C-alpha cells in the first residue's frame, strides 16, 4: 500500500503572517503547542491571500538572537557586560516574522510518497514540510509523524 503525505500529515495547524512581530510569534508558538498538544518548533507563514510565504522555526529566532561574535566568548572567563541579554531581546521588538523567516520553502503534495518526504527532510535538514495542492495548504508533515509511521511497521 502506498503511503503518502495525506496519510501522515496533520490537518490542524497554526500559522503566522509576515507582519507578526517576533515577540508575538513566540507567544503564538506557546499557544499553538498548547492547542495541538505537541511541541511546535516551526510554523508556516501565510500572506494575505492565504498562500505560503515562508516558514519560521525557533531556530531562526534563536539565530537572530545570537550575538555575532560568540566565537570570542569561548576564551572569556566572565561575560559581565550589564544588560547584555536585555539588549538582545530589545532588538526583537522591531523585527517581524517576514524579516527572518525562510522565504523559499520546499513543499510536498498530498500524494508525495513518505520515502520521498524522508529523503527531502534528510537532504534539506528540515523537520516539517507543508503539504500543498493547487496553492492551497492541506496540512503539514512533521518528522516525528514520519518516524512513528515507519517505526510502527517494525513493532506490530
Amino acid at each position: 500500500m502506498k503511503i503518502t503525505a495525506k496519510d501522515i500529515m496533520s490537518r490542524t495547524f497554526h500559522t503566522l503572517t509576515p507582519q507578526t512581530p517576533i515577540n508575538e510569534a513566540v507567544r503564538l508558538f506557546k499557544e499553538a503547542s498548547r492547542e495541538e498538544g505537541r511541541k511546535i518548533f516551526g510554523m508556516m507563514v501565510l500572506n494575505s491571500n492565504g498562500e505560503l510565504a515562508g516558514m519560521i522555526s525557533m531556530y531562526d529566532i534563536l539565530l537572530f538572537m545570537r550575538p555575532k561574535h560568540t566565537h570570542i566568548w569561548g576564551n572569556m572567563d566572565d561575560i559581565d557586560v550589564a544588560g547584555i541579554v536585555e539588549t538582545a531581546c530589545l532588538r526583537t521588538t522591531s523585527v517581524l516574522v517576514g524579516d527572518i523567516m525562510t522565504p523559499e520553502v520546499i513543499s510536498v503534495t498530498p500524494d508525495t510518497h513518505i520515502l520521498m518526504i524522508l529523503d527531502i527532510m534528510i537532504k534539506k535538514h528540515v523537520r516539517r514540510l507543508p503539504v500543498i495542492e493547487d496553492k492551497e495548504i492541506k496540512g503539514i508533515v512533521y518528522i516525528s509523524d514520519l518516524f512513528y509511521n515507519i517505526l510502527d511497521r517494525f513493532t506490530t
Partner: protein
Amino acid sequence: MSKSDKNTLSGLVVSQAMRRQIIKLNKDASISNSINAIIKYKINALLAVDDSDNPVGVLSKTDIMGAYYAGIPIESSIADIMSQPPLFCYPNDALESALQIMRSKGVYRLYVVDSNNSKVVGALAYPDIVGLLYQYCCDCEYSHIQQTKRSNPATIKRTLVKEIMTNEVKSVFNDDTLSYVMEELSIYRFGAILVKNRENIPVGVISKTDLTLAYKHGVDSLALADTIMSSPIQSCKPDDILEDAIKKMIFSDVHRLFVEGSSPNELVGVFSLSDAARNRSGSCHACVSSRIKLEA
C-alpha cells in the same frame, strides 16, 4: 587557534581572522529575500553567486539603502543593485596586506578564496578583526582584564576612547525624512547617524539596518526619522578604557558607541568598530611592538 600561534599580531594571516560561514545567494534572488539573510545572520553584506556558484558580486546594506532611496521595487533581483566584482584575498595573505587592500579600495570586507581551487572559503571584515584583536588583548597578561585579577596590578597606560574617537557628531532631526537621512549617511559614509529633536536633545539612532528593515516593511521614504529610529542610544565615556568600549560593542552587537560629554544629552564623539580596526590594534601601551601600523 592555539595561543602560541599568535605571539604577535603582525605575524597573523587572513585565515586566522576570517569568518568561515559565508552567506551567499543567487544573483537572481529578490532584494526582499536578501534582507532576510542579512537580518538573520547579522551581516553587513552577502555574496552573490551565479548558477554555477561562482561569486559575481557583493550586496551590502549600503546597496540596499541606495535601492530604497531610489525607489527600486523590493522584488527586483539583487543583480540589479549589487556591487561588482567582489574583491578577494587569499588565506595565507598577511592580515596587514589584506587591510591595506580594504583601505585603498574603500571597502569593508574581502572574500577569501582558496588558491588551489578558487573556491570562496571565508570573508574578512573589520568587526571580525576587532574581535580577534580583543581576544588577543584578553589573553595578554598585561591586559586590563588580566591585571584586575591580580593583587598588585601593574600600572600600564591604557588607550582611552577619547584618543581615537571621532570628535564630530553629525546628526539629523527627528522630523527629517528618511530620504534626507539616507542622503546624509551616504555623503558622510556613516553606518548610522544620531537623531536629535528640535531642542537638540539626542533621542535615537538610525542605522543602515533600521533603513533596511524600513524598506522591507514598506515604510515610505518620506516618513519621518523618529518612526524608525532605535533608542536608547548606546554610549560610553571619553575616559573609558578602549578595551571596555570594544567589549561593550562586540558583546552587544553594536557597531558604534556615542561618547558622552558632561551630561548624557551632550554627545561629543563617536567611536566605531571600524575605527578600532583601522586606527589601532592593541588596547594599551604595553604592546606597541605588536601593534599593526595602519596610519597612512
